[in-house]
C-alpha cells in the first residue's frame, strides 16, 4: 500500500517535485510554484495535467482549450472504465442480490432482493458503528501526523551535516510494508511484552493493548507511526517549491523565524498538505492490513473498522451481497464529506491554484 501512495505522490506533485527530491539542495532551481497545486488535481482529473505543466497555464488556457486533443484520453478512459466503472456497477448490482455461498455458483441468477441488503446493513449490522470508528480514528491519526510531518520537514529543510541520512531514516516507517509494521507492533504490544515491561520500569501498568477499549488507541498510535512520513514527504515537496527570492525578501523585511514560517512559508504548504490530508484520510479509512494483522478476526468490537467488517461479512460469513451493500453505503457516507472538502480546498479546481494564497 505504501508504494502505491508514493506513486500517487509522485504523480500528484509532478516532475517538479520529483526532481527536487532527487537534488534537494538546489531548491533555487524550483520551477514555477504553480506546478504543485495545479498538478495536484492530476489525481482527480488526469486530463488536466498537461495544462498544469506549462509556465503560465491561465494565459494559455484559451488556446489549449480550443485544440485540446481529447481523443488522447481514450486509452486511459477505457482502462478507467474497465478497471473502475464496471466493477463499481457490478458491486452495486451485487448489493441487490442475495449472494452467498449457496448462490455463488450461478451468481448472475442469484435471487434479486432489492434494497433488503441495504436495510439489513443499516439497521441490523455494526455498519454505522464501523463507519464512525473508521472516520474518527482516521481523523485523529491525521490531526496528529500533520504537525509531526511539517515539523520534520521544516527541521530538515536547511542543509546540515548528515541531513541526507536523517531524511532517509525518517522514511523508514513509510517504506516498511504494513504487514511488517503490524507484526512488529503486535509482538511489542503482547501482554508482558516489550511495551508493558518498558512502562513497568516507570511504575505504569500498560493494560491490554490488543483487546478491549484500548485497542482503538493502539490502532491510532501505530497508524501515526506508520503514516507521518507521508505528510513529511508532501510538506517537504511544498517547502522545495518556495522560491529562493521569497526567503531573501522576507529576510530583507526583517521577518523572524516564526513570522516567516507563519506568513511566508505555510501558505506555500497549503496545497500539498490539503492533498496529503485527503490521500491520508482515504488510506487510513481503507487500511485493512494494519487492523487485520494487529488484532486478527474477529476483531475486538472497539476496532471493527470498515474494511474488517466488509472482509468478515464477505469471507467469513460469505454474505457477498450484504457486504457489497455495506461497501456501497460506506462509500456514499464517506464521499459526501470528501466532496465538500474538495470544494472547500479547491483541490479539484484547476483554475484556482490552491497552493498560492
Amino acid at each position, binding site marked *: 500500500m505504501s508504494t*502505491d501512495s508514493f506513486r500517487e505522490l509522485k504523480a500528484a506533485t509532478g516532475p517538479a517535485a520529483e526532481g527536487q527530491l532527487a537534488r534537494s539542495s538546489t531548491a533555487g532551481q524550483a520551477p514555477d510554484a504553480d506546478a504543485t497545486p495545479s498538478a495536484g488535481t492530476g489525481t482527480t482529473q488526469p486530463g488536466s495535467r498537461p495544462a498544469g505543466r506549462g509556465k503560465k497555464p491561465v494565459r494559455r488556457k484559451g488556446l489549449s482549450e480550443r485544440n485540446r486533443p481529447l481523443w488522447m484520453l481514450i486509452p486511459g478512459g477505457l482502462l478507467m472504465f474497465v478497471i473502475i466503472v464496471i466493477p463499481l456497477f457490478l458491486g452495486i448490482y451485487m448489493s441487490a442480490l442475495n449472494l452467498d455461498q*449457496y448462490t455463488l455458483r450461478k451468481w448472475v441468477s442469484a435471487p434479486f432482493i432489492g434494497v433488503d441488503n441495504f436495510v439489513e446493513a443499516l439497521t441490523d449490522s455494526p455498519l454505522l458503528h464501523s463507519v464512525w470508528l473508521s472516520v474518527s480514528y482516521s481523523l485523529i491519526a491525521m490531526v496528529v501526523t500533520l504537525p509531526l510531518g511539517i515539523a520534520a520537514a521544516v527541521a530538515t529543510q536547511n542543509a546540515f551535516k548528515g541531513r541526507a541520512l536523517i531524511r532517509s531514516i525518517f522514511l523508514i516507517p513509510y517504506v516498511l510494508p504494513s504487514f511488517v509494521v503490524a507484526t512488529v507492533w503486535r509482538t511489542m504490544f503482547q501482554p*508482558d511484552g516489550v511495551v508493558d515491561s518498558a512502562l513497568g520500569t516507570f511504575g505504569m501498568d500498560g493494560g*491490554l493493548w490488543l*483487546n478491549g477499549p484500548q485497542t482503538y488507541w493502539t490502532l491510532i498510535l501505530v497508524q501515526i507511526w506508520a503514516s507521518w512520513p507521508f505528510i513529511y514527504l508532501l510538506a517537504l515537496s511544498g517547502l522545495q517549491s518556495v522560491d529562493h527570492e521569497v526567503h531573501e525578501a522576507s529576510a530583507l523585511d526583517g521577518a523572524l523565524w516564526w513570522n516567516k514560517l507563519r506568513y511566508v512559508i505555510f501558505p506555500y504548504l497549503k496545497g500539498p498538505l490539503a492533498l496529503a490530508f485527503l490521500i491520508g484520510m482515504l488510506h487510513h479509512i481503507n487500511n485493512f492490513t494494519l487492523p487485520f494483522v494487529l488484532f486478527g478476526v474477529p476483531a475486538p468490537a472497539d476496532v471493527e473498522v470498515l474494511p474488517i467488517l466488509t472482509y468478515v461479512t464477505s469471507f467469513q460469513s460469505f454474505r457477498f451481497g450484504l457486504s457489497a451493500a455495506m461497501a456501497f453505503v460506506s462509500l456514499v457516507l464517506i464521499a459526501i464529506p470528501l466532496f465538500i472538502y474538495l470544494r472547500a480546498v479547491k483541490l479539484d479546481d484547476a483554475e484556482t491554484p490552491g497552493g498560492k494564497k
Partner: protein
Amino acid sequence: MRFTPSAKLAAVLATAALALTACGGSGSSSDSTGGAVDGAGKKLSVLTGVNNQYPEQQKEWFKDIAAKFKAKTGADIEFETFASANDELTRIQTSVVSGQGPDVYSLGTTFTPTAYATKAFVTLSEEDWKKVGGKDRFNQAALGISGPDAEHMAGIPFVSRPFVMAYNKDLLTAAGIEKPATTWDELAEQAKKMTNAGTGTFGLATGYKDNFDPWKFIWAMSVQAGNPLVDGTNLKMDDPTVKKAYETYFGWLTKDKVVDPAAIGWSNSNAVAAFASGKAGYLMMTTSSSVPTLDKSAIAGKYAYSVMPTTAPGETAPKGDGDKAASILSGDNVVVADYSQQKDLAFAYIELITSKEEQLNYQKIFGELPANAEALASLTDPKLQPIAEAAGKSKATPFTGAWGDIQLGLLNVTVQSIPDLANGSVDDGALESRLKDAQSKGQASLDRAAKS
C-alpha cells in the same frame, strides 16, 4: 492480503477468505487395483496446498506421484499449489463461476461444508466410490465430514490431523500424577498440582488469542455434555452446557490460575513454545505437527501425547456422543470438480494417493496420519498411538454451510471476553449477553442455510 484502494472494490474482488484450515495434499503411488483408466495424452490438473514445512520433499513427492500416475493411467499430472487459504478460495471462486479450472482440489475439513454448499463438486455415487477404492478403505471416522449424510458425500479423506494434548512426563511424575486426565475436572485438578507461580511453571499451556483453539474447546465440552450445538435447524448456543464450557475454559485462567496470565495474548504457537521450554505440564489442542518442534526442544524425549478428556466439566461420564468427541474431525479432503471433463482420471488419481502404500509413504515424509484404515492400523510408533486413537475418536463439526458463522460466533465470545479475563473475572451477565448475541447471529445464518 492487500486491501484495494477503495472500500467499494473490497466487496467486489473475489479474493481471500479464512475458514479454510489451509494445507492440503495430494497423494501418491500406485497399487493397480482400480479399474484401468486409459488416460494416454490427457493431463489431470490438481490444486493442493503448499507445504511450508517440507517444501523440497513436497516437490519430490509431486514428481514421484506423477511418475506413478503416468505408469498407471498413461496421463500426466499438473500440480498447482496455493500458498494460503485466501489463494485457494480465490481459485475456487473463479473456477466455480467460470466452470473451468483444476480437476481435483484439496480442502481443509472445516471448509468442506462450505464448499459442498456451492454444489460445485461431485457428490460420489456408489460407482464413484468403487473407483477410488471403496468407502471401506477409509478410516470410517474420517468420512464424518465428507457430506451431510452417508448418501451424499463429496469429500474423500486424504489425511487426518486430530487434536490431542501433549504432556511433560517429568512434571507429571514430580506432581505424583500417574496417568494423564480423562475428564476436564481431573485435568484442572492435575494442572493445579503442577502449577508453581514462583518458578513460572503452569499446569496448562493454551492460547486464548488463537484464531481457532477457543471454539474447539467449547465445541468439545458442549458435545460431551450432550449438546451437539446444531440440532436440525436450531442452534443451541444459549444452552447452559455452552455457558458451563466457557466458564471452565475461562476458569483455568481466572479461578484455577493454572495458565500463564500472558496466555490471553497467546496463539497456539506461543503455547507450544511455553511447553517446549518445560514450563507447562500440558499442551492443549496440538497435533502431530508439533513433533518436529518438540523433538528439537529442551523436553525432547520427555513428553508424550494423550487423547484429550471426553467427559464434560461437572460430569462423571461422557454423555451422548461424548466419548467419540475427543477432537474435531480434522485433516484434508480431496474433492473432484463438477465441471471436470475427466472425472474417471481424477478418481484414478485419488485411488492412487489413498492406497495403503502411498498413505504410509506420505506419513513417513510429512508426518500426517493416514486416512486409509489399513495404513492407520499399521502405524507402530508408540508416540503416534494416542494420535491414531484420537483419529478414531474424532467427531465432525455440524455439516452446514452456516458453520463458518457459528464458529466465528463461538470465537468472538472469547475475543470480546479477553479484557475481562485480564482483569481476573468474566462477569456473568456480560458472558450471557455475548452468548445471546452469538446465538441470534448464528441462528440467522442457520435459517439462511435451511432456506437454500
